């Protein structure tokens, strides 16, 4: 195996890793943080949709999404150039410009990837320069027996769609609509025996980087707690 190990340089740091691995997880494993939302470890075919993990690679004309870039011997990577920083900050500002920003009452508060990335990029969670875009959806979509979806919080990373598709009985959720109206659509209802599997699985809620998709049970106890606090 060791003969497959190659050396790449990331921000002047030499890293040894398996040839052909994706760049993003290699960096993350070596404590070089690159913001990301749509990537999950073990994906064969990362969607490269959030565009937060862009890096500069010597020899490439344009920034590259590191989640899909396979490493090769001698590769030279920059994760923190001014241009990359600006690009990431803008991608982040775009994402939060459609977000409802209700951190204090959000189930993902303190565990939210957006909060983590905001700190890393020194960006506020509410953007002033760009107007807020309110997506025309209700606050909650409550049709599934065990899941609750909050479209205004969703960053459309697709992690939930990916993990659900990996399961044996998979694909109980998928993207619907398009453009700014894109949404994750949950199949299943109280009457549908197929959605009973969801009760014990909940894999989609575990990978959600924000608080957009939650287990109904957890969500109900969380909201009760918040309401109790508010009353005090």
């Amino acid at each position, binding site marked *: 195996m060791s003969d497959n190990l190659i050396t790449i340089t990331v921000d002047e740091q030499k890293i040894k890793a398996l040839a052909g691995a994706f760049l993003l997880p290699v960096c993350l494993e070596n404590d070089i943080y690159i913001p990301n939302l749509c990537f999950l470890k073990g994906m064969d075919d*990362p969607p490269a*949709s959030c565009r937060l993990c862009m890096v500069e690679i010597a020899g490439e004309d344009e920034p590259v999404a590191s989640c899909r870039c396979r490493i090769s011997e001698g590769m030279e990577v920059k994760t923190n150039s001014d241009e990359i920083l600006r690009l990431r900050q803008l*991608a982040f500002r775009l994402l939060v*410009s459609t977000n409802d920003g209700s951190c204090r009452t959000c189930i993902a508060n303190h565990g939210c990837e957006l909060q983590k990335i905001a700190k890393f990029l020194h960006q506020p969670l509410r953007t002033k320069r760009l107007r807020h875009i309110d997506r025309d959806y209700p606050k909650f979509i409550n049709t599934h027996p065990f899941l609750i979806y909050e479209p205004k919080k969703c960053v*459309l990373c697709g992690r939930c769609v990916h993990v659900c598709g990996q399961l044996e009985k998979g694909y109980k959720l998928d993207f619907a609509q398009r*453009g700014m109206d894109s949404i994750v659509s949950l199949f299943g209802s109280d009457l549908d025996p197929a959605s009973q599997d969801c009760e014990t699985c909940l894999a989609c809620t575990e990978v959600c980087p924000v608080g957009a998709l939650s287990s109904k049970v957890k969500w109900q106890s969380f909201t009760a707690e918040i309401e109790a606090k508010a009353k005090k």
Partner: protein
Amino acid sequence: MKSPNSPKEHLMVQAERAQGRVKELKESPIPVIYVGCATCGLAAGALETIAGFETVLKENGIEARIEKVGCLGHCYAEPLVIIQNPGFPPLLYQKIGAGEAGILVRSFLKDGSDPCYEYLIGSLEADENFPTLMDYPRYLYENRVVMEHCGLIDPEDIDSFLAVGGYSSLAQGLEKGGAWVLDEVMAANLRGRGGAGFPAGRKWKIARGIEKSSKLVICNGDEGDPGAYMDRTLLESNPHQVLEGLALAALAVGAERALLYIRAEYPLAVKIMERAIVEAQEKNLLGADIMGSDFSLEVSVFQGSGAFVCGEETALIESLAGNRGMPQPRPPYPAVAGLNGLPTVINNVKTLSTVPSIIRNGHQWFRSIGTEESPGTAIFSVVGEVEYPGLVEVPMGVTLEHLVVDICGGIKDGKELKAVQIGGPSGGCLPASLMDTIIDFDSLKKVGAMMGSGGLVVMNEDTCMVEVARYFTDFTQGESCGKCTFCRIGTRHLREILKSITVGEGRMEELADLEELSQAIIKGSLCSLGKTAPNPVLTTLRFFRDEYVAHIEEKRCPAKMCRPLIAFYIDLEPCARGCDACVACCPTDAIFTTSNRKKAIDQEKCVKCGECVYVCPPEYDAVRRVSPPEMIPDQGVEPLTEKNESE
């Protein structure tokens, strides 16, 4: 089943029979009436024209044949009719409705005396009694390679294509082999006509080099640019040329399956292509062991369901596989691993339609047309404020000025050319000062536009460039698939900012935001829809910045187009007493009679539809448009009342 004959001999039999049939038609003692019946002709009323011909022919007891042909590309003159009357050269007539059809039958076919010069464009052949088409700049300057037979042959009859040498390139390709076809197309440097200009031969070579038992070629007919219809015309007017190109591509790549991806909004193109495939299979020009060779190709049509993004090749493949039409990151390129992981070559309709001519005439011939880096011809759908809109095929390397002014007759109604939007919603807006730009893939890119698929919108002085940018951004953002952040949210912000500027609510600092967002969307987007979407914004900002500034700082629309920033008033001086054309057309009853019996507009009621401008008789021409609205002069108008009437 292999025949002992070579492909050429096989084709010869078919072609001779077809030529005989077509010759019979050409030399028939009864007149033949050809009517342009592509989608555009039908929309202009070609079916009524045919009905008109049929009725009057019957009434007068005249025998004549009516043949449906495709589109000549002369949209301004539809419905187009070619009449082949024995004793006359074939004559092309314009704007023939049912009434004109009757006149033609009675004056020309019945008496044989009057060829109705008033409807005539010209003769298709040189003739001393008639002007010929070559007397018109439109025909003279065009170089029809791909569109050579469009509008002249019956797309639903394979014989009319065989009679003009159809499928001879495929026969030649089959005799010389796929490697030779590939070499010819490589040497010709045929660049993809779908927009990006990637050399078709290079794509083919990549796919050919991959050791896989099964490969696929796809014809991309998912034409979705607003105002562009080149692909539709080619599919509807010369379907077999597309099929021949597709078969040659498959031969060069080593594919045994081919697909035509045509958008469902083109029902006629779908129908014609499906029929053409059946016809070609019956003649053994497609299908198993083509023309007795050992090359087989299975061809079918797939209908796209109306998503602009599916013109992007990775999204097209996703949609073929039954998934959401969302682009995938490249690499892997489709030529390496496309549909179901198979090497998949995707070429535009125009690219494939060009291939047979290259094989027939050789790569040197092809490279003698156009420029060094962009050989061949380009087909544009020229629309907007030009005198003669339509499809135009010109050699690469001519200037925009030549195309718009010399060939398409310049701007209508004596107005000034302001800009052209070239390359559709992904292209750029070029000002009149850049009309000397040469049309080829690289020159257009240098000035911030692109060849795109060939849409060209010509705009005059009455067009607001901010509104144009808003319009195209609105289109692309509506067609964004929603996958990647920059395209999904970034283009929406572009649209919101542009919208606020056109209604007079823009802020100067937002111009910098537009630029910053645009640059980031170009750099950061996943596919070329996003990567090119900001082009209209960037080019209008670059060439027409003063218009943006006027909207923001003065609340003024220089072209007087953006409704919230304009107002209409009636100039009392030229307004005629007694005329009330404007009163009748006003949808909100905003126009009233003044004390001196002229007309005036109640600004509170006016919705700025502009109808009164159009109906005001040209001899008065009294309605004025101003921007900003406060520019309305005080003419001291008073409504007519009983009191001042008696005075």
